[in-house]
C-alpha cells in the first residue's frame, strides 16, 4: 500500500499516526481513571460511570452558554471553569449516590453492578427529561479548534494535545493524592483491611464517600474534555463504558499503573491496526487479543498482591 507515496509523505503520516495513538491513549486513561479508583480501591463496579461523564459534559455545555450570555469577553477561557464545575457537579452527585445507595451494598459487591446499572438508566432518562432527547452542540473557543501545523505535512489536533496535557496533570494529581498524601494512606489502609483501619481511628465511611466522589469527579472532568471530540446526549455515556471497563479489567483492577499500561497497550494496538485494516476488523482483533490475554492472566496485567 505504500508503493505510490514519497518518503516525506510516509514520514508525516507515521508521525501523525504516532500522535493519533498517543491521543487515544490519553483518552483511555482519562476515561478509565475515575473507574479504576472506584473499582480498584472500593471494589464497586460502577456501571453509571458513563452517565457521570455525561453530567460533566452537560455542565460544560451550560457553562459555555452562560459565558456566551453573560461574559462573552471571557469566553476563550470558559473551558477551565467548566472543568472545575464538572468536577464539583459529578463529584457531589457521586457522594450523594454513595450515601444513598452504595454504602448499603459494600458487603454485596455484585449487587452494586445491578444497582449502578439501574442508576445509569435513571440518569439517562433524567438527562432526556431535563435537556431534551436531542444531542446538544458544545461550542468551543476558537483557540481550541483546528490543528497545529508542525511542518507542511504534519498537523496535530489541538484538542488532542489538550486532552494529553489534561490527562498527564490529572494522573499526577491522583498519584500524589493516593500515594503521598495522608488521605491516600487512609484510603489504601481501608482497602487492605477495613476493620483494622476502623480500629486505628480512620473514619472509613468518610474515606469511602470521598473516594467515590473523587472517582466520579474525575469522570466528570473526562466528560467535560470529551465534548471536544465526541457527542453530548443523554445516552452518549454508553459509548465509553465498554472501552472503560476493558481498560480497567485488562490492567488489573486494583492497580493504577496497570490501568495506564493497559490503556497504552490497547490504544496502540487499536490505532495501529485501524491504520492497516477496517475499523470494525481492528476492534474485533483488539477484543480477541484481550480475551486471549485475560484467559492466561485472569487477574489482568498488573495485579496487586494481597493476602486473602
Amino acid at each position, binding site marked *: 500500500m505504500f508503493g505510490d507515496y514519497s518518503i516525506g509523505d510516509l514520514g508525516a503520516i507515521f508521525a501523525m499516526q504516532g500522535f493519533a495513538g498517543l491521543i487515544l491513549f490519553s483518552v483511555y486513561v482519562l476515561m478509565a481513571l475515575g473507574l479504576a479508583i472506584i473499582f480498584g480501591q472500593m471494589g464497586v463496579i460502577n456501571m453509571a460511570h458513563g452517565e457521570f461523564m455525561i453530567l460533566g459534559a452537560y455542565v460544560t455545555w451550560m457553562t459555555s452558554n452562560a459565558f456566551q450570555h453573560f461574559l462573552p469577553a471571557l469566553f476563550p477561557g470558559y473551558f477551565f471553569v467548566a472543568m472545575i464545575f464538572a468536577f464539583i457537579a459529578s463529584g457531589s452527585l457521586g457522594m450523594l449516590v454513595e450515601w444513598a445507595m452504595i454504602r448499603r451494598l459494600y458487603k454485596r459487591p455484585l449487587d452494586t453492578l445491578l444497582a449502578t446499572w439501574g442508576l445509569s438508566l435513571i440518569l439517562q*432518562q433524567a438527562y432526556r427529561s431535563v435537556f*431534551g432527547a436531542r444531542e446538544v452542540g458544545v461550542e468551543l473557543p476558537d483557540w481550541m479548534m483546528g490543528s497545529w501545523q508542525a511542518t507542511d505535512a504534519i498537523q496535530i489536533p489541538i484538542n488532542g494535545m489538550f486532552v494529553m496535557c489534561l490527562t498527564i496533570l490529572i494522573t499526577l494529581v491522583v498519584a500524589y493524592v493516593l500515594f503521598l498524601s495522608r488521605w491516600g494512606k487512609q484510603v489504601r489502609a481501608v482497602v487492605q483491611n477495613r476493620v483494622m483501619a476502623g480500629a486505628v481511628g480512620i473514619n472509613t465511611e468518610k474515606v469511602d464517600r470521598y473516594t467515590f466522589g473523587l472517582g466520579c469527579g474525575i469522570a466528570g472532568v473526562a466528560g467535560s474534555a470529551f465534548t471536544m*471530540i465526541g*457527542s453530548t446526549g443523554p445516552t452518549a455515556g*454508553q459509548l465509553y463504558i465498554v472501552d472503560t471497563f476493558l481498560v480497567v479489567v485488562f490492567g488489573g483492577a486494583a492497580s493504577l499503573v496497570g490501568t495506564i499500561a493497559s490503556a497504552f497497550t490497547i490504544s496502540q494496538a487499536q490505532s495501529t491496526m485501524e491504520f492497516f485494516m477496517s*475499523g470494525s476488523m481492528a*476492534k474485533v482483533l483488539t477484543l480477541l487479543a484481550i480475551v486471549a490475554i485475560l484467559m492466561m492472566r485472569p487477574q489482568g496485567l498488573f495485579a496487586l498482591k494481597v493476602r486473602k
Partner: protein
Amino acid sequence: MNGVLMSDETEKGLKSPLRRQLLMGMAAIPALAMMPRPSFGAGPATSAVNTTGLAVTDSEVTVGILHSVTGTMAISETGSVQAEKLAIEQINASGGVLGRKIKFIQEDGASDWPTFAEKAKKLLVNDKCAAVMGCWTSASRKAVLPVFEQYNGMLYYPTFYEGLEQSKNVIYTGQEATQQIIAGLDWVNKTKGAKTFYLLGSDYIWPRTSNKIARKHIEGHLQGAKVVGEEYFPLGHTQFNSVINKIKLTKPDVIYAIIVGGSNVAFYKQLKAAGIDMSKQTLLTISVTEDEIDGIGGENIAGAYACMKYFQSLDNANNKAFVSAFKKMWGEKTVIGDVTQAAYLGPWLWKLTVEKAGSFDIDKIAAASPGIEFKGAPEGYVRIHENHHLWSKTRVGRAKADGQYELIYETADLVEPDPFPKGYQ
C-alpha cells in the same frame, strides 16, 4: 389505550348504574375494560366507509403514532413525532378526513425492536387504528412488518433507507437508497470533476447497502472514477484519528460519509481538528440532516455537502408555511431535517388516499395509493409510485456555520423510486 377508551366509558358510566361501582373503587375499572366497547351509532356513512371494523365513528377516526420517545433513538425520532402531530392538527383544522376528526394514540417503541412489534400489534388489534405513522430505523420497520401484514394495517414510514423492500401494508415517504445516492454522485462527478472516492460508514445494513450501490455506480457509470478506500466502524465508535490519517495519505477527491449517531459528532469534530479544510476537501454525506448538525455544531461541518430530498432552507411557499407552523408549534429553536419533513407527509398522504378511495378500508387504501399526488408538500410536489415509494427530487446542499444547508443543486425532474435496483445488487 386507557386514556382513550376510558373517557368513552366513563361518560357512559356516569349515566348508568355502573357509576356507583366506579365511585366505589378502582377495582371496577378492569371490569369495565373487559366489557364490550359501546357501539357508536352505526350510521350509513360509517358503515359505508369502514367495512372492516376499524376505529372509525361518525365523528372521529383513530390513527397511531409509533416512535421511540425514550432510549437511544429518541434523539432522531422526536422530530418525526412532532411533524406527525403538526400534520394531524392541520388536517383537523381544515375539516378532517371524510368529515371525521383525527384522534391519535401515541405509543413508545422505546428504541427496542420487540417493543415496536408489540406496540404495533396493540395499535392494530386493540385500538383498531386506521393507519399508523411510525418507525425510524430499518430494524424497527423489519420488526413491525410481519405484524402489519398479518393484521392488515397501514404503516407510513418516514426514513430514507436501504431499499430492498416493498409491501402492500407500507407507504415509504422517505427515499430508498438509489434516490439518495446516484444523483448526488453524478453531481459531484460532473461539477467537481471528482474521480477518487473514499467510502466510510457505520457498520450496519443501511450504510453497507448504500455504499455498495455507490461503489457500483462509481465503478460502472462514472468515467474513470474509482473507489480508493471503503471502511466501516462499529456503531458508537468515537475515535477517527487513524482513518483520518489514511484519508490524508490517499487524498481522495471525495470523502463519502454515511456515519450515524454519536459517531457522527466525533467524526466531524475530529476531521476539523485534524486540519481537513472542507473548502478544499469535498465531503459528501447522506446521513447528516439539520437535526444532526445541532449536535455536531455548525462550525465543525460548514462546507460539507449533503444529498437529501429536503432542506429546511428550501425556498418555496409550501415550505415557508410549513417551517413557520412547525416553529410556532414546537419552538423557535427547533430545526427540521429531511426525515422530519418526510414524516409530515405521512398523515397528509393518508388523508388524500382515503378521500380518493372514499373509504378507510386498508385494502382499498393500498390499492388507491399509487398515483396519489400531494401538491402541498414542503419539498414540493410528490407522488406515490406503484411500488409504494415516493417520486421525489434529489437535492444537494452545502452546510453553513449556522447549521442550515444552502441549496446547491436539485434534479430537474422527480426521481423514480427503485427499491430493487437492477445491476446494483
